[in-house]
């Protein structure tokens, strides 16, 4: 009955994309935020961004929504809107102070994630983007369980080029296989740095074992794209602004936009395949 209640609530969500990584600090939240902005650039699309990183919610700050609170209405919790067509939900909005630590064990985290899915009045949503914490634990199992693996279009897995990241990301790929979650593809962040003064390219995180490209070849998953390091990305995130809007000419913006387009195409294709089956 509980599963039916969740499914009912999410019936009006057309596409769901999970943003995962085995590794922390590779740019999942950054990517989730930019994916949401990128998708919401089409004003005819309704986009929802759900942050299920309960211990380290980065989305409120990145979306410029720090200090916002969640309001209750008759139909449930209201998401916090950045734009008319871009709504956000995060545990960050439920804290009395941004420095409050959420020191919860798994079951309590799972309970909140269920509430996010059951009690938030998302309305009609074209794209639901879910930002996750690093790892393969409670949050990841719960979101796949509550959403139902079949209802998720797929996962975008984020990494950086070095082997220490890739070894965790391979585990995440195996997690996806284990829970039958389709993998849309892999994004390699922090992939090279071009000096704005001398234009020389450096590998700040050298791909000592071939980077995401080699890993994707070996594991037969799609490499959606590589995004170079741009200090403006971190700055925009800290200021809660969309990097895509603030630095439209950056090579990183071009990469992000290409990746976002590929994800959109994947979702549209996935949808039309489902419609054919139905």
């Amino acid at each position, binding site marked *: 009955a509980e599963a039916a209640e969740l499914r009912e609530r999410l019936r009006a969500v057309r596409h769901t994309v999970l943003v995962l990584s085995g590794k922390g600090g590779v740019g999942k939240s950054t990517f989730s935020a930019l994916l949401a902005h990128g998708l919401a650039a089409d004003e005819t699309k309704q986009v929802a961004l759900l942050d299920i990183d309960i211990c380290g919610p980065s989305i409120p700050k990145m979306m410029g929504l720090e200090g916002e609170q969640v309001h209750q209405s008759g139909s449930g919790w209201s998401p916090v809107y950045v734009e008319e067509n871009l709504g956000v939900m995060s545990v960050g909005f439920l804290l009395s102070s941004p420095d409050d630590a959420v020191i919860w064990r798994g079951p309590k985290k799972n309970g909140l994630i269920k509430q996010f899915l059951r009690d938030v009045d998302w309305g009609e949503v074209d794209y639901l983007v879910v930002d996750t914490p690093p790892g393969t634990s409670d949050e990841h199992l719960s979101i796949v369980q509550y959403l139902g693996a079949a209802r998720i279009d797929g996962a975008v897995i984020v990494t950086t080029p070095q082997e220490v990241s890739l070894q965790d990301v391979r585990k995440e790929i195996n997690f996806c296989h284990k829970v039958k979650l389709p993998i849309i593809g892999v994004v390699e962040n922090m992939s090279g740095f071009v000096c704005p003064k001398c234009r020389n390219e450096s590998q700040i995180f050298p791909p000592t074992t071939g980077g995401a490209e080699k890993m994707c070849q070996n594991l037969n998953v799609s490499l959606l794209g590589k995004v170079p390091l741009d200090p403006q990305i*971190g700055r925009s995130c800290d200021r809660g602004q969309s990097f895509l809007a603030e630095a439209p000419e950056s090579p990183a913006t071009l990469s992000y936009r290409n990746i976002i387009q590929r994800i959109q195409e994947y979702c549209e294709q996935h949808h039309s395949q489902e419609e054919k089956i139905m």
Partner: protein
Amino acid sequence: ALAERTNLAGVRHILLVLSGKGGVGKSTLCTELALALRSAGKRVGILDVDLCGPSIPRMLRVQDSAVHQCASGWVPVCLGQDGALALMSIGFLLERPDDAVVWRGPKKNALIKQFVTDVAWGDLDFLIVDTPPGTSDEHISTVEALRPHQLLGAVLVTTPQ
């Protein structure tokens, strides 16, 4: 009362390396700190309680090592001729390095308790505990399991943004 010599009885200082944030360099710092202390003639152990993303084995080039049991529990993986650097990580227990540890909290808590009480560390000057990002099961369980012992303190790692 019987004085039980616990596996941590011979450990002089225990310190935790923490961060709320992932990817800031906790494991890197643990590794470098351990190596520096060993160079200074200390006996050091690293306990890696990052169960989903254990980085310590690879950082010390022992990712292919396995753990053995002895009468007092698990024998840590020892590095170097003198064996002055001892390690324990879930990385040593995986059948394949890419195997995902897809465990909910209670199962993680059980293993962490074992890691704290059932590893035969012997005599160490420092035990450095590497943690995953966050403030959840691993952190609560580690601190609870270490409570009877003298915790030196925590080092917090961050990046500037």
